[in-house]
């Protein structure tokens, strides 16, 4: 039976180099597109020259990026089966990071949607959700763990068929000098959870394929994304789907913008954020 190695001539360095170089130009369904302006899937209405990140993330895959203040990030669930678990850090002082409790408590709202500020524990906005046609998002259940996925699916490893979000976050974080201690509770997009009157959790699933969420980076950010099955997805199998990510140069929330003074609490968070940015010369 033919093996993969039978299709490669790699018995000398020269042959191995030629073989490696012959792979150039191949395309797979999950890959980054560089330069970002070359993306085959440009977001509607975005000038290609402004793009700084273009990538399709595999089902069960992860990605990460450092983005400038004012970047606009678009996450798109290609199949209706993606679930984008997200962690955000101030890239300049990464001990400032997403604080889910403040993110739901301070705006008096547990469910994430358009206009929701994603807050750090330092009284600042890391990012604002500026568009969301999914409405199926979650700030309560976090992501999956090794123990949970081993129990549910028999495997949790990044190289296996049912990676856990936490194990992928550990890898993504490590590439920015962050350790497992730096992984607080995360949020997720494209799979919904609602809370019943008795506190019981209800999984509301996906809004369908092609839905998108857009965030504006209000500070320089380290963005970690794990695209894995939601931890309380009740389906017996591990279900995940392609996630498309684009980011482009835009502007942070400032005076005159829709969300700048839409709510008292968020307004003061934007004041704190712009105060920090001004003082740091950002």
């Amino acid at each position, binding site marked *: 039976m033919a093996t993969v190695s039978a299709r490669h001539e790699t018995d000398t360095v020269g042959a191995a180099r030629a073989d490696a170089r012959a792979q150039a130009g191949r395309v797979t369904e999950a890959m980054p597109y560089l330069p970002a302006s070359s993306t085959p899937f440009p977001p509607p209405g975005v000038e290609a020259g402004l793009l700084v990140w273009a990538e399709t993330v595999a089902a069960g895959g992860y990605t990460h990026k450092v983005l400038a203040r004012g970047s606009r990030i678009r996450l798109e669930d290609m199949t209706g089966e993606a679930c984008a678990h997200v962690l955000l850090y101030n890239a300049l002082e990464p*001990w*400032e*990071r997403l*604080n*889910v*409790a*403040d993110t*739901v*408590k*301070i705006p*008096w*709202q*547990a*469910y994430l949607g358009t206009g929701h500020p994603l*807050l750090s*524990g*330092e*009284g*600042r906005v890391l990012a604002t959700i500026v568009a969301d046609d999914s409405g199926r998002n979650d700030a*309560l*259940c*976090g*992501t999956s*763990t*090794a*123990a*949970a996925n081993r129990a549910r699916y028999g495997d949790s490893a990044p190289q296996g068929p049912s990676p856990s979000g*936490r194990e992928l976050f550990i890898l993504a974080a490590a590439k920015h000098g962050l*350790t*497992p*201690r*730096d*992984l*607080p*509770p*995360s949020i997720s997009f494209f799979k919904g959870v*609602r*809370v019943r*009157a*008795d*506190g*019981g*959790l209800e999984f509301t699933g996906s809004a369908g394929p092609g839905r998108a969420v857009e965030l504006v980076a209000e500070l320089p950010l380290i963005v970690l994304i794990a695209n894995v099955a939601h*931890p*309380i997805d009740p389906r017996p199998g591990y279900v995940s789907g392609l996630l498309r990510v684009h980011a482009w140069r835009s502007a942070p929330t400032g005076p005159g913008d829709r969300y700048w003074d839409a709510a008292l*609490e*968020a307004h*003061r*968070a934007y004041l*704190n954020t712009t105060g920090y940015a001004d003082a740091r010369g950002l």
Partner: protein
Amino acid sequence: MTATSPVVVTDATGRRPYCPADLAVVLNPANYADGTVPDLAGPLVAGEIVLDEVVPARAPWSAVVRAGQVLTIVDVGGNQSADCLLYSAEDTGERYSVPDTISRSGNAYVRTGTVLRSNYTNALATVVANEIDRQDTIGGACGKESNTLRYGHHTMAEHGCRENFLAEAAKYGMGARDIVSNLNWFMNVPIEADGTLGIVDGISGPGKRVAFRAEMDILVLVSNCPQMNNPCNDFNPTPLRMIITAAQERSHA
């Protein structure tokens, strides 16, 4: 108040807990809102008492609770939020996880029987007794910076739970990255059908208790919440009593 009324510094059994400050002052109702009658209650479970301390209003506290031991927290003055974080005593990289706890329990509130889980989904502790309807683990901790968002920049000078947590965590070599979403014993945070949530009037009272059993050796950090801008303390920060009781023989029937 009349200068002659004595302050009771013992519980019903005559026991006097240790307190880092003068317990008579810490329990003196004259130091709290009118009508506050401190109730020291006692342990919520049977067993030899191995630690018994009163945490003054607004102060941090910590202790290691060994596997099998039970920590009873007494809401001495009533409706006093006890913000709480748990860590594996052996490896503080393993710590309390709100999402693991509620994803596994299937419920956003904490009640008797709720297993308090770590970021590795392991059981850190189990709530074994609880004298109020439900406990909160969604509302997080207050802090100087977050107070400026919630109430205005005039509150920046006030003390917060985040500051208590940071001060207490520093004793164990931990810092800002080790402070994660927490439990709030005796705090009431309803989540409404449309997702609206917030801290409302408490459902606890003087002498009400909660108790949880350590499932491994755990480090417990508590901030006796100093918040004065919402009802999490009834606008009246009061003391807490922390009682650790020895492990009991578990039935294996």
